[in-house]
């Protein structure tokens, strides 16, 4: 999996300077958060449903070998072909083989984060295939040569103006001006409609696999995934081995949480279940349907302390509620997966050595855990990764020594309290006349955006002790 998380701090600094993008991000994620809150409030049993799905997911992961094998059996019974991929290379080669067997030249792709993880597009393109992303957001960033900035809205970082300019460069517009957002949507629709009708292979992802009947579940609002699944003569469904749920009703029960958490809907416009080729007498649909099921370290995660991360349903709520994500945006993470979920998943799917900065992209505010419909304890997992980072000595020495010093002080409260009292007193003396500090040693990042307030003369512990002494004397 390609990732550039080493550059997180530089990327974040650059992103913080782009005020227009930050404002747009803030507006859209705040709106998504409000819509989610309203949908959750209307559904009185939301917490009960969360607990139920948690149990189902745990049960599925506890017995994943059984359910995956049941899924395979049923999918084959439906006429599907099921393939297994250990890693990105396996998945990419399997998909290319299928395309080549059918002399395919054009591929229409629905949104599939799994194939972004494996870098499938560039692999197929280097073999001479034309690959077109068909989700509107994915299409925009593909045309712009950029990476996704949000799991649900990949082009969230781009303004309508930027998208208009992009289409002016890439499309033959003639006299059309594309003034309104709806004009931009129609333009993309027309271009992509042609591609849907010409593509020989459709590739989609899956939100779940159903063991009892061998179907995949795909949840979309645009319907592009359904066009990919129904129009080309070959369908390839790429997903990961951990997506299996026991029953069809488990998948739709999960979609209740997913739709409300992502977009506040009762159900996304299209919730579709696919398995097998066109049946006898049908006039449309693929002649072959393939499932390519990727492991890519997930079976290792399953036996690790991080297994709960596999219960993620990719709703994006943790991104929308994360102060770090909202400040720096998804592209700063340098990985397919961004936000709190990405900061846990990226180190596990690649290596902590290359992405140890990401688990530090956290203020431990806990909002991600509070809104996660899969009840994943994201702040705890991030803390555990930071702990591993410390043990492996991956962070800069000044951070490690600083934390060691802090840890020593925290274990010696009397020295801590004395030093705190002295430094607070000094800060008070220095600052009481001017009311705040515009510059402070070791805190230039903090003071670059706002003044540091002048503390009270005495610390809380000093005041508490004084008060206790007073009441004892009485």
């Amino acid at each position, binding site marked *: 999996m390609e990732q550039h998380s080493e550059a997180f701090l530089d990327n974040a600094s650059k992103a913080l300077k782009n005020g227009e993008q930050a404002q747009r991000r803030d*507006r859209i994620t705040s709106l998504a958060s409000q819509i989610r809150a309203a949908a959750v409030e209307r559904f009185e049993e939301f917490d009960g449903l969360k607990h139920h799905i948690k149990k189902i997911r745990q049960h599925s992961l506890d*017995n*994943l070998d059984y359910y995956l094998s049941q899924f395979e059996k049923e999918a084959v019974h439906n006429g599907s072909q099921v393939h297994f991929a250990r890693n990105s290379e*396996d998945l990419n080669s399997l998909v290319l083989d299928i395309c080549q067997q059918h002399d395919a030249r054009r591929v229409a792709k629905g949104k599939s984060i799994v194939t972004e993880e494996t870098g499938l597009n560039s692999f197929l393109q280097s073999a001479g295939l034309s690959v077109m992303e*068909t989700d509107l957001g994915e299409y925009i960033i593909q045309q712009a040569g950029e990476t996704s900035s949000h799991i649900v809205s990949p082009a969230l970082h781009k303004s*309508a103006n930027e998208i208009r300019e992009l289409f002016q460069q890439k499309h033959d517009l003639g006299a059309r001006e594309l003034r309104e957002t709806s004009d931009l949507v129609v333009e993309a629709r027309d271009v992509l409609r042609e591609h849907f009708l010409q593509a020989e292979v459709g590739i989609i992802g899956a939100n779940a696999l159903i063991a009892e009947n061998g179907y995949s579940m795909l949840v979309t609002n645009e319907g592009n995934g359904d066009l990919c699944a129904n129009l080309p003569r070959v369908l390839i469904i790429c997903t990961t081995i951990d997506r299996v749920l026991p029953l069809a009703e488990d998948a739709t029960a999960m979609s*209740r949480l997913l739709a409300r958490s992502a977009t506040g809907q*009762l159900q996304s416009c299209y919730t579709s279940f696919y398995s097998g080729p066109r049946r006898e007498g049908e*006039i449309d*649909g693929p002649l072959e349907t393939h499932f390519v099921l990727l492991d890519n370290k997930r079976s290792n995660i399953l036996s690790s302390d991080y297994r709960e991360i596999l219960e993620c349903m990719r709703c994006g709520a943790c991104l929308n509620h994360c102060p770090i994500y909202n400040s720096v945006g998804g592209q700063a993470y340098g990985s397919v997966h961004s936000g709190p979920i990405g900061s846990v998943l990226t180190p596990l799917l690649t290596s902590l050595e290359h992405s140890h900065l990401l688990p530090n992209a956290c203020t431990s505010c806990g909002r991600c855990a509070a809104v996660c419909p899969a009840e994943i304890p994201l702040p705890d997992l991030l803390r555990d990764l930071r702990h591993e980072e410390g043990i492996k000595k991956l962070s800069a020495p000044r951070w490690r020594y600083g934390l060691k010093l802090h840890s020593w002080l925290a274990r010696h409260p009397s020295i801590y309290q004395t030093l705190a009292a002295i430094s607070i007193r000094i800060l008070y003396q220095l600052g009481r006349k001017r009311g705040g500090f515009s510059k402070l040693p070791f805190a230039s990042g903090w003071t670059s955006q706002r003044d540091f307030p002048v503390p009270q003369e005495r610390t809380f512990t000093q005041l508490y002790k004084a008060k206790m002494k007073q009441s004892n004397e009485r």
Partner: protein
Amino acid sequence: MSGSARSEIFAHLREAGRGESEENIQRERLSLGSASAPAPPATEICQAFILNVLKNQGSVACVNNRAEAVQAIAHYLYPHFHNYRLVTGNDPRLAAMPWRDAGVLPRFGSLEAGEPVALSFARLGVVETGAAVTWTSKANPAANNFLPEHHIVLVDKNDLVPTMEKAWERIHHALEKTGRPRGINFIAGPSSTADIEGELIYGAHGPHRWHVVLLGDVPVDAQNIARAAQRNQC
């Protein structure tokens, strides 16, 4: 490659798994029961379904019988297209409808370029989500559900189910006789996107209008809700 990959992956999973017997696994799943569904927006089933269809930005017409259904479809078609043409699958239930009485000209088959409107007969309507359920077959080409600019869906009141759990019960029962289809689709509204600056636009790839014709003995209150909404939408 896939064969050895399969054995390797399953070996890892077996190591990580609990190694329970099939019987124990199934018993455990059974003991977990079913999920809770949201309360419907109204106690009467038609009213609740209509309210959720409207919430999904669909429009609704209520009709008592097939003759009225054809009339309602004609009333929908003319203002939008100035003609009475539509495409529909080779569904015997649709072929038997009195199309000529209302002057509607159906073409039976799969939607082709230049044809803006298709009609499907839903297998089920799900009250909880305001969704129509269809599945692929000779009688229901997938293109008719996903490619038109306007998608009209006929839903029989007798096919309304309260929740998605009940929908699966009905689907599994129906498929016991026919075998499993290639695709099962729960459709809840016109195709939409908010990928450009969060602005919600209908008709991203598929239909930008979604019209439900609810067929059967629909209570007057429910009919009034549908009518009032239609007046507002007009």
